[in-house]
């Protein structure tokens, strides 16, 4: 099925961004749509691609490095810190992370800090440490230093949920110019549209980039329930309460004979 979808898939191509580029990326995703059903326990998507010369006669300069950054739908989260007050642990301060990806995976063929210099990565926002995670500071929005305790805790907690990850082995070069990236989609993956940024490095410099997208949707019953709960709260609550009464009544019918 997946292979079939792969064969049918439109090849997403990106033109050369800069005239100086001698490389062009052609990528294709095994599936542009992940359906979350009642039996969804997570799955793995595969991104295939090749490095093409541009123009066709230009020479290629392997070895290449590849970084794939997958960012899920944006959301706002609060990171709270507990402190001991009068013997018990209480949330005393919190930071709001505004419009940050609900899912973030940085996948590469080797650890990102070996691919390029620190300032290059920082400028291109490559790697979990360099990704922009804006916090609300007073009335402003801004990212803090990377070892800000709230930022670190935020990334760590998201990582424990399987939602934020960085892997230096998820991309494999099958030949010097053909690559394959495995995108893990955990069971708790948020629904919405995901952006996939593919960046090609050679000798520590960015030489080509392209992007594609995928969508995670709840289907069938799950979608129906989630929509109803959000859009028709009162009706949904009344229906749930009715369900409770029906089950209670039914049980008393079944077990009445004793």
């Amino acid at each position, binding site marked *: 099925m997946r292979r079939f979808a792969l064969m049918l898939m439109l090849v997403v191509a990106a033109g050369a961004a800069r005239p100086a580029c001698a490389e062009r990326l052609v990528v294709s995703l095994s599936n542009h749509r992940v359906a979350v059903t009642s039996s969804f326990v997570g799955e793995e998507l595969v991104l295939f691609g090749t490095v093409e010369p541009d123009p066709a006669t230009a020479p290629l300069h392997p070895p290449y490095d590849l970084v794939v950054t997958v960012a899920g739908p944006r959301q706002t989260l609060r990171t*709270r810190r507990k402190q001991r007050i009068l013997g018990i642990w209480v949330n005393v301060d919190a930071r709001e992370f505004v419009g940050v990806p609900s899912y973030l995976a940085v996948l590469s063929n080797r650890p990102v800090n070996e691919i390029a210099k620190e300032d290059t990565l920082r400028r291109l926002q490559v790697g979990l440490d360099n990704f922009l995670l804006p916090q609300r500071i007073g009335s402003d929005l801004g990212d803090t230093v990377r070892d800000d305790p709230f930022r670190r805790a935020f990334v760590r907690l998201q990582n424990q949920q399987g939602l934020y990850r960085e892997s230096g082995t998820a991309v494999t070069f099958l030949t010097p110019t053909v690559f394959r990236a495995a995108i893990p989609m955990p*069971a708790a993956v948020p629904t919405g549209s995901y952006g996939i940024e593919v960046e090609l490095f050679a000798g520590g410099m960015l030489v080509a980039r392209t992007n594609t997208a995928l969508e995670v949707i709840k289907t069938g019953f799950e979608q129906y329930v989630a929509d109803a709960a959000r859009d028709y709260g009162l009706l949904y609550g009344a229906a749930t*309460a009715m369900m409770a009464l029906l089950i209670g009544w039914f049980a008393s019918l079944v077990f009445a004979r004793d």
Partner: protein
Amino acid sequence: MQIYLPIADLPVNVFLVLGMGLAVGYISGMFGIGGGFLMTPLLIFIGISPAVAVATVSSHIAASSFTGAISYWRRRALDIALAMMLLSAGIVGTATGVWLFTELRALDQLDLMIGLSYVTLLTVVGSMMIYESVRAEMRARQGMPATLRRPGSHTWLHGLPFKLRFKRSKIYVSAIPVWAIGFIIGFVGAIMGIGGGFLLVPMLIYFLRVPTATVIGTSMVLTLITMASATVMHAATNHLVDAVLALILMVGGVIGAQFGARMGQKMRGERLRLLLGLLVFAVGCRFAYELVVKPDDLFSLRHVRTD
């Protein structure tokens, strides 16, 4: 078999949740309580957020108390007039509770509030039950008769105005303590995700001197209505009721309750109260432990909104 919960947004094992429903249902049937104070912590323990757990458990309790109420109705062992009186205040209590729940969630203090309420309420009520049942047991050992309800005994509660007569329970009391009890039950129910049966029954017996014949049935009617309205209110304001989770819990709960009720009828009253007291106290201590011991992670996340 895993199933994805649409509101809690995580997959759970159906048999695990069904088993929890059965176990809590068994206990609730045995003691004649809703079992919310056990179910909510269990759900939190398997990774469901406290807010979703509290909101969802209310519908589960509505189901199990409806089953109970029907069987007491058949035996005519409930006082509808008293239940309605408690209820009029209970609804106000529930609405206040749901409002406070929403406010505390915005202030990041909801989990603390839930924890503190559990500790205070459960340890106090648990130790009172243990003390009372041990004393009754001792008295029974020494061959003394159990303290019976003294028909003429009055407390200051009986001196309050707005007196009402409840025929089925054969009591004549002021409306003020009835309203106060109703409000408290509705309020803690909405905050803690409990039906409050284990609180309501002793309160009705000790404060209003409701006879044991009608007390459990009456408490179940009240629980049923407050929990059904808490379900609706939580769904309408916080959108946190997970119908799929609720359904699995309900099915397990009502089946377990039937077997528990049979077991409960075989045991002596004092023994049953002692066991329930120990259970309530133990759950309270568990919550106290969590508040006092340094958490593994000082940081936690809360989803504010999807942009």
